[in-house]
């Protein structure tokens, strides 16, 4: 898939979500918001909302479980694509910060992985060795390692515990997705029904506080990202892959880490542990756009490592984009 196409398609899907919400309000069609989106009795429910509602009410809700099952299946296929293709939080943040500052949100100590070998063969071997080591490790160790790798899982656990104790869905109060569409609905009701309420000011204020003042919401806090991440590690398709016959790191004398620097999830495709880190990939396409040699592609094929050997690369990169 090509760079510009991804950006276009993302804009399309994000706009579609907003249009659906507004159409829902205008035509009484009950489509809803990303908290629960659908037509009539067919809907996709936010997995976190569903979990919180079940835990807070101490009831199993079959319809919610079914919807969550669909979300899990989708995540097993496309990983955390929701984050880049459906979630309004990155859009809201970029409205206020602009493109350049997204890069500056990385701390100096982020993404400073060792620069790695300049030889494609050893880099590929290192990544494959990591995959084998991971596969050979005992199951419990693999689970513990995966759990420790994402501090957002703590937030997820904390939210569920709090919902159980308090007896209502806690995170829904502060969720940036809820606040975004809370703002949209409040503005709609202000203009259509002349309904004046403090919500129309407070919701966006909280949203801005969450996403701008604490810039690392998505990366450090989001429990939805944590939930999706549990399943996203198995999604090996549609991941970005580097063509080592074109990439500067392997063909040039300089070292190049542009892809790692621009990645909103600080994924370094050259890192030996890329296969594990790519669980966080949101398929946003920023690395594709930023690569000075356009050496990165997203393909339908399943791939555990992020580097493509030169001989294989010639088959992939010259074939027409899917």
């Amino acid at each position: 898939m090509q760079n510009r196409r991804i950006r276009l398609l993302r804009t399309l899907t994000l706009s579609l979500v907003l249009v659906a919400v507004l159409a829902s309000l205008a035509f009484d069609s009950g489509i809803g918001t990303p908290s629960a989106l659908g037509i009539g009795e067919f809907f996709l429910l936010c997995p976190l909302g569903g979990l919180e509602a079940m835990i807070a009410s101490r009831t199993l809700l079959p319809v919610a479980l079914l919807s969550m099952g669909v979300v899990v299946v989708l995540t097993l296929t496309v990983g955390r694509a929701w984050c880049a293709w459906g979630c309004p939080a990155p859009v809201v943040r970029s409205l206020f910060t602009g493109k350049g500052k997204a890069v500056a949100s990385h701390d100096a100590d982020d993404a400073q992985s060792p620069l790695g070998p300049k030889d494609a063969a050893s880099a590929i071997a290192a990544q494959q060795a990591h995959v084998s080591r991971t596969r050979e490790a005992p199951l419990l160790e693999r689970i513990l390692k995966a759990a420790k790798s994402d501090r957002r899982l703590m937030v997820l656990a904390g939210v569920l515990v709090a919902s159980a104790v308090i007896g209502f869905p806690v995170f829904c109060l502060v969720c940036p997705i809820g606040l975004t569409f809370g703002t949209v609905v409040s503005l709609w009701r202000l203009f259509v029904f002349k309904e004046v309420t403090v919500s129309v000011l407070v919701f966006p204020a909280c949203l801005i506080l969450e996403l701008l003042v604490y810039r690392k919401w998505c990366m450090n806090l989001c429990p939805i990202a944590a939930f999706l991440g549990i399943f996203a590690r198995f999604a090996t398709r549609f991941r970005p892959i580097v063509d080592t016959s074109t990439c500067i790191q392997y063909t040039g004398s300089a070292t190049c880490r542009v892809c790692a620097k621009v990645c909103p999830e600080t994924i370094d495709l050259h890192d030996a542990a890329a296969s594990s880190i790519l669980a966080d990939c949101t398929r946003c396409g920023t690395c594709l756009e930023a690569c000075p040699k356009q050496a990165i592609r997203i393909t339908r094929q399943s791939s555990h490592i992020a580097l493509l050997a030169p001989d294989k690369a010639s088959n992939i990169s010259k074939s027409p984009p899917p």
Partner: protein
Amino acid sequence: MSSGREITRRSFMATCTVVAATAATGFVVAPHSAQADVLRPPGALAEPEFFARCIHCYRCISACPTDVLVPMHLEEGVLQARSPTLDFSEASCTYCDLCRQVCPTGCIGPSDPNDTAQGRIGVAVVIRENCLAFIDGSCGICAQRCPYEAISLDTFNRPVVDAGLCNGCGECEAICPAHVLRAFNGNRTRGIEVVTERRYQEVWASSDAE
């Protein structure tokens, strides 16, 4: 492997502290909201249960064909904001069942507008200080318009609500002209309003039984 996102001791302690603080605060504050006396869609589960399940998705509000379902404002309760309530100032509920169909977490159960024991919204009560019929006998439109014939006029042509028939659809409140045809006295209450079952039992039930 370094994503800068591993669980560190510091992040663990920070998360535990925040969760503990949230849980403690919520433990104190939430029961108050869970017992709130709020009009809910017809067939809604009891308030603590409704409160536990509602994820503020706006589906019921956007599905409502008469737009009588509205989101609660922050001013009405921080924890309740965005959850659905009814506003009868311009519309009434037709018991179309759409809200129940679209709710993703089962907050709303079945309701029967002809059976007051099956999930009625509330009960209409006459506010005598505002009702034009009580003031100068000049109105009786609610009795005419009630779709369930739950309002009748007494010997002085003043409306009387039969709580055994009224399901709180709100048609009477929506049509009541009391605060239009009188000088505005600072309140938003009309000559008749729908109150929750609970409020009805606490305030009006005993006097109505006489």
